């Protein structure tokens, strides 16, 4: 741990990692709360797995056609948004079996990614960092991108907070008020897509959904307002990513996995804690 702090002061890549963890936690705290309340964690997981297709394709074209400006993250953003809109439109139109379609997209996205990565000349070690994340590889450029996406997520959430709340609480009523329910749903999915792209750099495609939902699950046990849950989830996210980073540093463990284990253990502890203690009587907040 002390080695981590000493290196943190000296090594820029470690500073980048810490900043990335903080910036990602802001977006994932906000969007994760909506995702959990709207009960679309499954859709968020599907979007994150589709990203592999975009990452793989962008890297393939970048290497094979010598396009250095085409960074894998651009492919990820494009694929995530495309997947979000496709799934969104399917789930709005289709009355049933939408889970089948979502699962299919989930798997197809992964398969396309694996094929592109397989055909890309050179080492394929990137596959592992896409799947499980490598926060230590985050560059200055990545940080600017993460920061920009953060600004978009925060600005849109502040602008449409009341509307999103109304749609998440009672979609049918919102419809009777003449609200553009579909618009808010697709907007939320797009925000989810962008957040997932950010979070992939921290914990990887496979574990994104845990970082989106576990802090919210913990925070929901202690707070009974949406904005409080968002704030608490952000802080929890920051705590998990930073402790994950610090704990994994010296023994050289994958930091994404350590982060998720920390979050999972904390969640289990809150479950045990509230099982031992009788359900807390919520006091009215005046």
């Amino acid at each position, binding site marked *: 741990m002390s080695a981590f702090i000493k290196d943190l002061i000296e090594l820029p890549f470690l500073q980048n990692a810490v900043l990335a963890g903080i910036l990602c936690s802001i977006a994932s705290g906000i969007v994760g709360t909506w995702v959990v309340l709207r009960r679309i964690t499954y859709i968020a997981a599907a979007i994150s797995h589709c990203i592999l297709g975009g990452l793989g394709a962008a890297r393939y074209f970048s290497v094979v056609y010598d396009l250095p400006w085409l960074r894998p993250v651009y492919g990820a953003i494009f694929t995530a948004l495309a997947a979000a809109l496709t799934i969104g439109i399917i789930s709005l139109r289709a009355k049933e079996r939408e889970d089948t379609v979502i699962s299919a997209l989930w798997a197809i996205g992964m398969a396309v990614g694996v094929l592109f990565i397989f055909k890309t000349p050179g080492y394929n070690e990137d596959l592992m960092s896409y799947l499980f994340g490598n926060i230590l590889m985050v560059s200055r450029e990545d940080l600017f991108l993460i920061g920009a996406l953060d600004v978009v997520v925060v600005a849109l959430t502040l602008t449409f907070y009341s509307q999103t709340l109304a749609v*998440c609480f*009672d979609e*049918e*009523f919102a419809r009777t008020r*003449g609200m553009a329910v579909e618009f808010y749903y697709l907007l939320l999915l797009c925000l989810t897509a962008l957040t997932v792209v950010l979070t992939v750099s921290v914990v990887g495609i496979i574990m994104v959904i845990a970082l989106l939902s576990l802090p919210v699950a913990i925070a929901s046990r202690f*707070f009974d307002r949406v904005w409080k849950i968002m704030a608490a989830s952000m802080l929890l996210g920051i705590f998990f990513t930073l402790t994950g980073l610090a704990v994994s540093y010296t023994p050289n463990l994958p930091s994404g996995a350590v982060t998720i284990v920390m979050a999972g253990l904390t969640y289990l502890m809150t479950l045990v804690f509230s099982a031992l203690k009788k359900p807390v009587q919520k006091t*009215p*907040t005046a």
Partner: protein
Amino acid sequence: MSSADIVVRFKDVNFAYEDGITVLESINLELEKGEFACIVGPNGGGKTTMIRLMLGLLKPTSGSIEILGGKPRERCQHVGYVPQFSKFDASFPVSVLDVVLMGCMQRSFFMGRYSKTQKEQAQQALADVGLKDMAFRSFADLSGGQKQRALIARALMSEPQLLLLDEPTASVDVHGTEQFYRMFSEMNEKFTIVMVSHDIGFVAASVKSVICVRKTMQIHPVSELTGESLQKMYGLDVHLIRHDHRCTEKGHVCPHS
């Protein structure tokens, strides 16, 4: 009766779901301003479908529906809707005031926060439904009846000319149900009310008309539904519906045919 005073008009309305099962068949209905109508009928008979058609959430397969002199989707700003509270996520983290303020939502994009006027209006709506001082409680902590009241307050925020309620007393005890009907009667002085109900026994007390839906529809002014008029209306068939026959202080009433 001029057409301006017709709040709800169904003309030859048929409705079938995509799987082809007909839910409503040749419904013709006109409800005047100030009406307090109760839709009754067996489960799956099309009660909720009628409410959803009035809200414009569903479109009729054929026929036309006019609400407040226009298409349901266009007039929905003036229609208050109170769904059943039981369909909500019981632990959704919002305050009662948050829920009521959702009634201010409109088609237009308004940015950011609710205005002071809207918040005052929400407090007034809460007082109107008997939830004064409950504004900052968690919606999740309210009892079933209180949740239902909060949802009614939410519907009042749009200053409706027509209030549609889907089984508002579904999980409220008998005493609570009486209070609800007293509240509805007061509200009925200001606007038209249409509700779906299972509480057939209470319907007769404050409801003006009963709409009986079972694929097809019949409307009965409550006071006319004496045993004698029933016999006239149904002739020999009267025996088929006697199981719904109820005795009240107003005489024999059959709200549910």
